[in-house]
């Protein structure tokens, strides 16, 4: 049964997909994005969150380096509230190859990336936790970027121009007639309902899953999922991004985000993009390398370990893994395979997601006789929250939380939340002290059409994502969840399962690092939930 229709259907709710949706919408093309789970659940939120200056690619891939520095400048402007303009350092410690420095400096110069040499004293003054074995340090315009928030702001912007999106909607078949895509069949993963969506062009932006989507149309697309493992620490180890100045390798990037630091990344080719398991060996490998830059690394508490799959595109006969290109490809299946109305985009990196969308849509738009120019670099993603609104909000909840909530919510929703806080004093309850999330915000986000479960709300609000890792808010969110989702959920859930599922989701990231201070935290979690709350239920067995 045909239930929906769009000129272009984009498959995949990662940075690539949302970037394309925004670009198409701004060009006036009717587009619908579908995502099989919640938005941004793949590599776009499962990476180190580095806004590349391009310096990391300066030696091996200068085209990528140039693209990075240009996009870096653009994203700082259009996505201000998603970027922490930290700057970055490239450092060498004793034992690193001094011969790598000159070609790197030359590469940066040729690519238009500014570098500034720092004396050892200055570098250590700026970043006191750096190893005393530091030899050289350079400053570059790296930054930190919140991939999750930036993706949602792209969706918000796209919606402003008429773009639509559906979560938990999975493509399960491509209907072809006369060598052209006519429609796709999808399944609603919440209601399990299956239906058809008619379209003129199908865009495969499924990242590491792109091969699987291509298969549905009987095509081959050689994507090699490359797993990257990352470690999140409970504090800012440095105030700047810190890179190891050497040939890119595992465990040589530290990125500060808010109150935490992320260390990454490994690169392991895996058969299945769903494989985000991590082992002691991977963690140890990252820690060992990381210790070279920050000697006291093992004394910091690890919050969790996580992994994501990069969608590396491997042309036939080429090499995968660390040496595969970080560039991207646009595949027009009409030209390549004789199938009209289907295009695939593959590879790339978060920093250049906007440029990828621009180049891709420059190929797509003419097929629809659309000659509009790309405008995604000209306009900010979302309007800024006015200071007056923030000032008004400070009367109702902790001042520290106001900025966090304003950037999470954006002008419109923030205004509504502040109004609720003013009118309903009970809604001022802070459910999550780590991230300063109020009941009013939870309720507002729960009313969104994309919120199907408390887990969806958690991702949007950051409830339970902070340093207590859910210890204190699992019970609170379970208590409100049932009220908020009782009518919405297809399957009924109960508060104990909610609590357990919430903590289980965090547990997955904790198990590979169950040593040091993490052990202490785990004993506390179990002491509270398994013992004091007896969440497994009383009269068992």
């Amino acid at each position, binding site marked *: 049964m045909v239930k929906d229709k769009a000129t272009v259907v984009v498959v995949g709710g990662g940075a690539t997909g949302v970037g394309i949706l925004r670009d198409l919408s701004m060009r006036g093309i009717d587009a619908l994005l579908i995502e099989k789970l919640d938005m941004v659940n793949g590599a776009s939120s499962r990476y180190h969150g580095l806004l590349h200056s391009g310096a990391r690619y300066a030696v091996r891939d200068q085209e990528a380096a140039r693209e990075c520095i240009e996009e870096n400048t653009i994203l700082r402007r259009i996505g201000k509230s998603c970027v922490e303009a930290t700057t970055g350092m490239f450092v060498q410690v004793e034992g690193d190859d001094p011969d790598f420095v000159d070609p790197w400096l030359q590469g940066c110069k040729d690519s238009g990336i500014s570098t500034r040499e720092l004396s050892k004293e200055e570098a250590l003054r700026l970043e006191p936790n750096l190893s005393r074995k530091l030899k050289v340090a350079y400053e570059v315009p790296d930054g930190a970027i919140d991939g999750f928030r930036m993706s949602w702001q792209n969706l918000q912007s796209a919606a402003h121009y008429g773009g639509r999106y559906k979560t938990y909607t999975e493509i399960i078949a491509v209907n072809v007639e006369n060598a052209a895509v006519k429609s796709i069949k999808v399944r609603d993963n919440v209601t399990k309902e299956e239906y058809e969506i008619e379209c003129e062009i199908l865009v495969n932006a499924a990242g590491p899953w792109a091969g699987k989507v291509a298969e549905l149309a009987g095509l081959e697309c050689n994507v090699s999922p490359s797993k990257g493992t990352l470690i999140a620490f409970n504090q800012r180890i440095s105030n700047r991004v810190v890179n190891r100045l050497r040939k890119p390798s595992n465990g040589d990037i530290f990125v500060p985000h808010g109150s935490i630091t992320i260390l990454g990344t490994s690169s392991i080719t895996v058969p299945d993009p769903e494989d985000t398991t991590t*082992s*002691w060996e991977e963690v140890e490998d990252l820690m060992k390398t990381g210790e070279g830059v920050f000697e006291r690394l*093992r004394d910091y508490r690890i919050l969790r370990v996580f992994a994501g799959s990069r969608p590396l595109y491997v042309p036939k006969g080429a090499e995968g893994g660390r040496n595969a290109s970080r560039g991207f490809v646009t595949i027009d299946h009409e030209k390549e395979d004789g199938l009209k109305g289907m295009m695939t985009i593959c590879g790339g990196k978060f920093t250049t997601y906007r440029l990828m969308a621009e180049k891709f849509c420059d190929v797509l738009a003419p097929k629809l006789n659309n000659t509009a120019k790309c405008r995604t670099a000209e306009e900010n993603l979302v309007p800024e929250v006015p200071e007056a609104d923030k000032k008004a909000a400070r009367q109702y909840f902790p001042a520290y939380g106001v900025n966090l909530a304003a950037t999470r919510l954006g002008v419109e929703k923030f205004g509504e939340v502040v109004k609720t806080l003013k009118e309903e004093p009970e809604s001022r*309850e*802070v459910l999550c002290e780590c991230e300063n999330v109020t009941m009013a915000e939870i309720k507002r986000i729960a009313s969104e059409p994309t919120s199907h479960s408390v887990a969806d709300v958690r991702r949007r609000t950051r409830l339970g994502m902070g340093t207590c890792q859910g210890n*204190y808010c699992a*019970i*609170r969110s*379970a*208590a409100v969840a*049932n*009220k908020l989702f009782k009518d919405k959920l297809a399957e009924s859930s*109960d*508060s*104990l399962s909610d*609590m*357990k599922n919430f*903590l*289980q989701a965090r*547990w*997955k990231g904790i*198990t590979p690092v*169950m*040593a*040091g201070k993490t*052990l*202490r935290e*785990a*004993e*506390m*979690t*179990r*002491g*509270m*939930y*398994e*013992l*004091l*709350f*007896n*969440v*497994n*239920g*009383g*009269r*068992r*067995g």
Partner: protein
Amino acid sequence: MSKSDVVVIGNGVAGLMAALVSADQGKKVTLLSYGAGTFPLNSGVIDVLGYDDAGKAVANPIEGIGRTADNHPYKKIGMPAVQDAVEYFKKTVADEGFPYVGSLKEQQWLITSVGTLKPTCLLPESLQASKCFDANEIVIVGVKGLKDFYVDMVAENLAKELGSDKKYTTVTVDTYITGRDLTTRDVARWVESDKGYGEFLAQIKNQAGSGKAIIVPQILGTKGNYVVYNKLVKDLGCAVVETTGMPPSVNGIRLRDVLLSALKKKGIRVIENVIAEKAVVKGDTVTAVEAGGEVRAQTYEADKFILATGGFYSGGITMRDFGEYKEMVFGLPVEGDCVEERWVNKQLFSDKKQAFAMAGVRVDSSLRAVDESGNVVLKNVYVVGRNLSGYDFCFEHSGNGVALTSAYKAAKA
């Protein structure tokens, strides 16, 4: 500092009980304490054994202990000491005016702050859930501004435990305290004040009646006695049940106050806010421990030492990296199954014990640490409570039971 007969290191349930029992043997006792121990996180009830190895509820703790594995601390402590320890505890708290109900022969139940039932062995009368089992109507009382006690959630889960044939109603009272979120301790202080009690009673009185039971958070006074509880039961004329809940645990602190009061009466010297850092060892005997903190380290000499510094949570045992265990005072041998496939269950709440939770000091039946061949390492050092290996207290619900009974045995040795 003059020499003691016994130095006890640690001030959780295990440490305080070890000090009390030692003093009863006529010994001169010094207790090295740090902070409030784990009491703010402690339910303040004595779980002996709630669930067996298969996760099945244990109806009779004594029989359950008989079925534990050979390396379980209870097997090393032995049944006579377990029974004597339970009697000793009951007498101690009763003498302090805070008698506990329950016995080793029959499991007791309490209601948690999420509305589940939890098995335990000994508990204050105000927490005894059985009083509401026969009620027709359960009234759940919440408090405005009190986090972590959600009346609807308690009703939802309690109905699953006690049956949906009962009527469940909820009511929320106002403390008239504004401007901040409240903890159970704040509310308990309000309820034990004359004015607060009057305001509280006025708001719930019309809910009471025959055949009803009133469920409240842990708010019936901060002190280890039944003054507020008894008054409320009399004024309402029906059953009243307190729940356990989110830290800071009011009942944990009540138990701590009661045990500290008993300690004081026995003339036990308590050194506050010190961390035992190292031991002075002569051959296989410890002659003293050095303990410091914010003040200069001092040496505490004794003939006998009882280690009650806890596990990973309290920092008595650490593991900086996989397999690198350390017992922090004496460097005693720690055993644990630190193998990647087994160290952590992939499921947080599973039907299996967690290997990491069972890591601890290996001891023999005298509760002294032994090496891999079974030889005692330090002949005058006894190990108690969560310092011990071989049990997962969260899975079994056995924490305070092992703490109490091991402390009793070590003190008697």
